[in-house]
């Protein structure tokens, strides 16, 4: 018999409306999963107690029966918001993020806050100050990052869906590593108010789900203009309608620069297979070159760290969070930051401080801004010829814990496929496109700004032709 925790939200909502299942059973099914596997997966930093979760169910509010997990860098009033950092280990959110407000208005049942790389800086969730999260498909491997907890939670059924945040791939890469669907929406379509900032001009909240329909559905709840976020775009929110998946005649560009040497042969094989699936469905796939994409990683690590060095300056022990001892205010701030931040965060703060310093600003920051525009222009030109672009979400398979943590540069380079999307501000979705030795592989589909509906159509078309999205991980042979 199918376990309810393995179903999608839209399937469960159907069962609820037909009264074929009781909301409590759905919630209990997720709670059972957590009780069975959380001690091994470690997807959460904070879980609400079972009683509270069950008491949150409202008879006439079906979404209250579909547990959702939230990445721990979004503020849920009254709950801890640690960003997986020691410096915020005692911080309780005093207000709700706009996305959380929207979920609560629709009676969503928030069951807990998920693990991440400290302040969303990383690609493996190993940079959490508390503990790493493990990949439900192979507990020896990382779930990706930085939204590793959110992706793992959905994959193993701790929650039916979740929210992550994506600055350079932090939704899509863990979705790919965990065999689930993740969307990085167009910059400005989802409010960042209440999302603890990493890099303000790149950060975007998005859904992580088991399939494309759930992704579209959850996106419809979180998108829309927010007067509290000046970078939020004043346009109507995305309205959900079930995708049809017709991709006949669709023009798809395969990004040449993202299929280069660094791509694992097994990932390449999955891409070849994906192209065939698209072509069999009547789409046209051609190679396209985006020449400036190869500068994405350095461009990103200059801009993102510059913004981060300033965004993270507020954690000083003066008003909230960790406070270390010190004889003077300056010494207290110095010690607080020394004790409170982990090595990767410190590395990025130093890098960002450096690139903004007098004498270096023009050579680094300004130059990176120029490259950002060139990369965005490359995309614009490509979208004149293609409806969407595709690439692997990650050039490599989920790696083992500890395998890359000692080599940050190698870790940075593995984000090459996802980073250009954030720099250009465009939307992109990652969907499962194959399995190699029972490890999931993700396909990234990118579209022009505000093309989320199109991305749902294309990925639903792909999903309909495959069954990768139906596979669920098994832990410990159960």
């Amino acid at each position, binding site marked *: 018999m199918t376990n309810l925790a393995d179903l999608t939200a839209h399937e469960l909502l159907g069962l609820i409306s037909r009264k074929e299942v009781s909301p409590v059973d759905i919630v209990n099914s997720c709670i059972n999963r957590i009780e069975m596997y959380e001690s091994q997966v470690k997807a959460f930093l904070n879980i609400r107690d079972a009683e509270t979760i069950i008491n949150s169910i409202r008879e006439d509010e079906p979404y209250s029966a579909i547990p959702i997990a939230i990445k721990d860098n979004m503020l849920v009033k009254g709950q801890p918001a640690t960003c997986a950092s020691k410096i915020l280990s005692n911080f309780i959110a005093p207000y709700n993020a706009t996305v959380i407000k929207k979920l609560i208005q629709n009676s969503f049942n928030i069951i807990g806050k998920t693990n991440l790389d400290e302040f969303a800086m990383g690609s493996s969730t190993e940079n959490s100050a508390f503990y790493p999260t493990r990949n439900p498909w192979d507990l020896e491997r990382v779930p990706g990052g930085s939204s590793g907890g959110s992706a793992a939670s959905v994959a193993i059924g701790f929650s039916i869906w979740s929210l992550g945040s994506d600055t350079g791939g932090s939704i899509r890469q863990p979705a790919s590593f965990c065999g689930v669907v993740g969307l990085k929406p167009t910059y400005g379509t989802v409010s960042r108010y209440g999302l603890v900032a990493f890099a*303000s001009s790149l950060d975007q909240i998005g859904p992580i789900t088991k399939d494309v329909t759930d992704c579209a559905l959850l996106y419809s709840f979180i998108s829309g203009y927010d007067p509290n976020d000046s970078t939020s775009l004043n346009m109507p929110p995305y309205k959900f309608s079930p995708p049809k998946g017709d991709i006949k005649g669709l023009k798809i560009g395969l990004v040449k620069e993202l299929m280069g040497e660094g791509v694992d042969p097994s990932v390449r094989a999955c891409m070849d297979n994906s192209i065939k699936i698209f072509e069999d469905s009547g789409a046209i796939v051609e190679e396209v070159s985006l020449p400036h994409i190869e500068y994405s990683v350095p461009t990103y690590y200059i801009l993102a760290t510059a913004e981060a060095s300033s965004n993270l300056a507020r954690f000083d022990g003066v*008003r909230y969070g960790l406070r270390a001892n010190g004889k003077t205010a300056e010494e207290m701030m110095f010690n607080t930051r020394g004790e409170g931040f982990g090595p990767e965060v410190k590395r990025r703060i130093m890098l960002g401080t450096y690139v903004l310093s007098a004498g270096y600003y023009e050579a680094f920051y300004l130059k990176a801004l120029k490259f950002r525009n060139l990369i965005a222009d490359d995309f614009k030109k490509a979208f004149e010829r293609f409806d969407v672009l595709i690439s692997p979400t990650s050039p490599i398979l989920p790696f083992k814990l500890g395998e890359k943590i000692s080599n940050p540069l190698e870790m940075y380079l593995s984000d090459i496929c996802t980073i250009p999307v954030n720099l250009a501000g465009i939307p992109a979705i990652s969907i499962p496109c194959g399995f190699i030795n029972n490890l999931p592989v993700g396909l990234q589909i990118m579209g022009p700004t505000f093309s989320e509906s199109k991305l749902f159509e294309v990925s639903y078309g792909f999903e309909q032709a495959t069954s990768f999205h139906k596979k669920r991980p098994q832990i410990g042979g159960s």
Partner: protein
Amino acid sequence: MDYEVNIGMEIHAELLTRSKVFCSCPVQFGAPPNTLVCPVCLGLPGALPVLNKRAVEFAITTALALNCGINRHSIFHRKNYYYPDLPKNYQISQYDSPIGIQGYLEIETEGGRKRIRIRRVHLEEDTGKLIHSGGRITGSDISFVDFNRSSVPLLEIVSEPDISSPEEAKEYLSNMRDILVFLGVCDGKMEEGSMRCEANISVRRKGSEKLGTKTELKNINSFRSVERALIYEINRQIDVVSRGGEVIQETRHWDEKNERTVSMRGKEEAHDYRYFPEPDLVPLEIKDEWIESLKSQIPELPDEKYERYKKLGLTPYEAKLLAHDLELSVFFDRTVDLYNNPKNIANWLLVDVTKELKDRNKVITETSFTPEIMVELLDLIDQGVISGRIAKDILPELIDRGVSPKKLVEEKGLIQITDISFILSAIDQVLRENAGVVEEYKKGKEKSFMFLVGQVMKLTRGRANPKLVNELLKKALG
């Protein structure tokens, strides 16, 4: 003196908007600590700034009044530095595209009118306020932070080093304050900190083309200290240079108590603020129509008022006094509309009314006095109902109670006596009682006449019509 002095002024004006510049907390002076705060002005994680439109309008209006050009595309920058009163550890300010550029302000000097060029007018946020347990930061065990002032809108107005003396600096500052007050954008109270000023000073030998090394002077908190601090610093620099020494580029602190400037930090310790564009705000696009509409709402400013008052027949001295006093000039203008003798009104306002206001430490709008009462009073004098003397006597009551002068003189029986037989009988009595003085007068002592007039007025308790007394007395003596 063989030295020329160059002074540039940097003025910070707190704007009188109802809410703060990046959040909706009220702007208010003197509220209990940390009661006017929210996630944004406390720099909580996830909070984002939203620009206050009114603050931008105040900035544009001020820039226009200072004859500045307006940048149609203006952006905000982050100024990064650590200080416990700065909640985000960066200040949202403006850097290379301020709202206003290249204007000027005219001042009156011994050599005639002089233009002081304005380099820039920009908008930024204020910091919180530190309160030290020992009164000063050094030696205090505990410091408290009050964030009520955090994110209050500040206008920074920077002049070119065109000011040549402490007197000119004072004139510049006072003209600037008047303009801000007349525009209604700032209350100009230096003592409460709503207008603050810093100066950079350099001296050079007369005829030398190159500006000397400048020092920056901080902590000048009143009009009085501006002049004194500048005099001290100029003398200090001349002393250094004339002894063959060199002025060190540094920031100096005005020590009000000991009346001297002391070194705070040298150039080598100068901050690198790592300015970069604020990614949480979008660029400010200022349309021509917006500027035009704000321009059309600029009220008459002191310089224009001054010219107009001179045309109304006031002396330059009277015109200047009135033109630079917002409340009094508005009162004057309204009174002139009702009573066509500007000179007479100015005389009353600048002498008698001003004296009463000084005694009460009030401005005219804080009293019950109105232009209508003023006019009624002047009419009573003109019609000979009361004498100027009586008018002056009842003025305090009119200012405090706002009663009708006509009713007041009736109630008090102060109506002027024009009954010739009554006056003649009083003259009779005075002449009888002062036979000696009459003798002296007849011998040619002119002064004695005025004494006798005074005696008649005294006898009639000031109510006798002075003109009649004069005439009748002359006749009686003649």
